[in-house]
């Protein structure tokens, strides 16, 4: 018998009923994360059918997508910018109360972006199955969990049964050898991977990121990589848990404690893919060859090195449409292009190490005149830590706009948007048309590149400023 991949092991341990030709597997879900945008219709189904949330102890709610980030809207009774968003938040408060689900609500010190707070609390653990009505649930795969986004109907399924009906995906090894060069980050790595395999290249697969470069990453960096698995179309992305993982989790409030900790670590060590495991597909990437990356088009696969030019693709109508939307021409150098807005935050790059990276560039420098630099921490705990470490002071001295945590300008649901025609260098995950506001032009990049571009008001190679 050949060896098993980490994915195979986690899948097998959660199969309540195995799949057959006629029926998908019944897969048990260890942790169900919910937020205000994709849960109301699922709660409505429960109410109509008279069903409870079967395992409220395995369900954790927070609010992040449509919440305000201005402190005055947050803590005082100033009306929030988007009324409907406020109603959605109140609906989640009522639903969690009615169904006995724990809510880390608007004024809770542990609130934040759902994919940031669960790892931060130690709720995300190796070997778990984790779902959420949000495609960036793939983030939690950084811990060796099988974590994926689901739709609202499936949110209802998990509420009612703690299970999902699933066909088993295939496996895809992303082997990253070598080490990232200084100034080249996990964000640049995942953008390069998506550029290589394409935005649909991972469809039907669970990715496992492997190799020396991956092992060298911190947990914050691993989360950045796994977070964007969905941007390659993958169901999920996973990284084998190791000493870095265990050191991150140890002592976190919801991680196993004392004797249970040792038993858990022993169990987690056995999750790694066997040496003779066979993946359905693989790709090899050399980390040492990578440079800072930036997107130039309207999906994350339209990406080049920051010092490259906008590529030409004769006869590709989608490429032509994207360039027209972005106001770019093939052959244009990206370096030196005008920047109006810079957004540092999101479940991709809103963690403490991302803010530290931004501060390294911004320390003693000023944001260019006419540029709005919005820095939104991934959670209230990160906000507090950044303030305690003096990062917030660096940001404010540079002229940045420092906010309360949330998804904010990643998708602009709460009114934090980029105006039509403006260029935004963003550390978030999607440069789709209109993602950050109607007509907004998004360029995805690392916190280094974003901060450097904020200082010059032009797209800038951060290596010149580090």
């Amino acid at each position: 018998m050949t060896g098993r991949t980490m994915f195979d092991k986690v899948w097998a341990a959660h199969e309540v009923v195995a799949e057959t030709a006629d029926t998908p597997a019944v897969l048990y879900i260890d942790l169900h994360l919910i937020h205000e945008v994709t849960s109301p219709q699922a709660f409505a189904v429960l109410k109509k059918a008279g069903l409870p949330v079967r395992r409220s102890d395995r369900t954790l709610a927070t609010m992040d997508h449509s919440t305000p980030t201005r402190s005055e809207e947050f803590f005082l009774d100033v009306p929030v910018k988007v009324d409907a968003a406020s109603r959605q938040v109140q609906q989640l408060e009522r639903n969690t109360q009615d169904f006995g689900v724990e809510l880390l609500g608007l004024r809770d010190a542990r609130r934040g972006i759902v994919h940031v707070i669960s790892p931060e609390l130690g709720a995300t653990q190796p070997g778990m199955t984790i779902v959420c009505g949000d495609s960036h649930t793939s983030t939690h795969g950084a811990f060796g969990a099988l974590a994926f986004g689901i739709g609202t109907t499936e949110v209802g399924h998990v509420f009612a049964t703690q299970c999902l009906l699933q066909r088993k995906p295939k496996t895809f090894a992303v082997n990253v050898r070598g080490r990232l060069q200084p100034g080249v980050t996990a964000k640049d790595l995942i953008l390069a991977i998506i550029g290589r395999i394409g935005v649909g290249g991972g469809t039907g697969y669970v990715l496992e990121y492997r190799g020396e470069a991956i092992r060298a990453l911190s947990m914050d960096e691993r989360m950045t990589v796994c977070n964007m698995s969905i941007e390659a179309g993958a169901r999920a992305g996973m990284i084998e848990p190791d000493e870095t993982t265990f050191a991150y989790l140890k002592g976190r409030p919801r991680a196993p404690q004392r004797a249970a900790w040792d038993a858990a670590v022993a169990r987690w060590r056995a999750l790694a893919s066997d040496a003779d495991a066979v993946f359905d597909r693989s790709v090899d990437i050399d980390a040492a060859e990578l440079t800072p990356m930036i997107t130039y088009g309207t999906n994350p696969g339209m990406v080049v090195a920051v010092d490259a030019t906008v590529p030409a693709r004769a006869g590709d109508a989608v490429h032509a449409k994207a360039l027209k939307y972005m106001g770019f021409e093939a052959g244009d150098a990206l370096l030196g292009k005008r920047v109006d807005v810079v957004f540092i935050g999101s479940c991709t790059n809103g963690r403490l190490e991302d803010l530290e990276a931004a501060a390294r560039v911004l320390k003693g420098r000023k944001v260019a005149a006419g540029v709005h630099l919005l820095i939104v921490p991934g959670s209230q705990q990160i906000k507090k830590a950044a303030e305690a470490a003096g990062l917030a002071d660096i940001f404010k001295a540079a002229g940045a706009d420092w906010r309360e945590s949330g998804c904010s300008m990643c998708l602009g649901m709460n009114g934090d948007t980029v105006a039509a025609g403006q260029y935004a260098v963003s550390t978030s995950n999607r440069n789709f048309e209109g993602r950050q506001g109607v007509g907004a032009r998004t360029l995805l990049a690392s916190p280094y590149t974003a901060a450097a571009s904020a200082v010059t008001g032009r797209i800038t190679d951060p290596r010149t400023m580090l």
Partner: protein
Amino acid sequence: MEPITRFTSTIAVLPQTNVDTDQIIPARFLTVTTRDGLGKSLFADWRYLPDGAANPQFVLNQPAAQGARILVAGDNFGCGSSREHAPWALLDYGFRAVISTSLADIFCSNSLKNGLLPVIVDKAVHGWLLDHPGAAVSVDLRARSLILPDGTEVAFPIEAFARHCLLNGTDELGYLLSQLPAIERYETCAH
């Protein structure tokens, strides 16, 4: 849910590849707490001009697409966000099936759960459909086939259980609830 067996409709053609769910329904329309009435926001940023008038350039506003209940889309349709509002909006607008060479995973799953039929065809058939907006085709779920105007039957794959539920108009939740004894046994043993 109404059972789906076979239906015939003209096709609307949106050839662009990698159409993401932010295009299908932009995030600013997600502040709803029900699933109704999203059809008016379908493809909002492409369908309407800044002043709110219909954009005559957009395919759904063109004569050939009027009344079409089948959307022929480019490769990797529905990528990006997991929002189920995307199939809800397509259904509320009037679509009953999406034909493409591939669909994004979560979008496909969400579509099946709401009775929006995903029909995956090869490049040759897809190419023919892209070239014939307004053509009338039939989708036969029982036979798992797409029937072109000249009578050609093209088989399409569909997950067996989802097909069973769609043919019978039943909800997958009922099946999952029937598995509760097995789920309880699993919880006793494993957790």
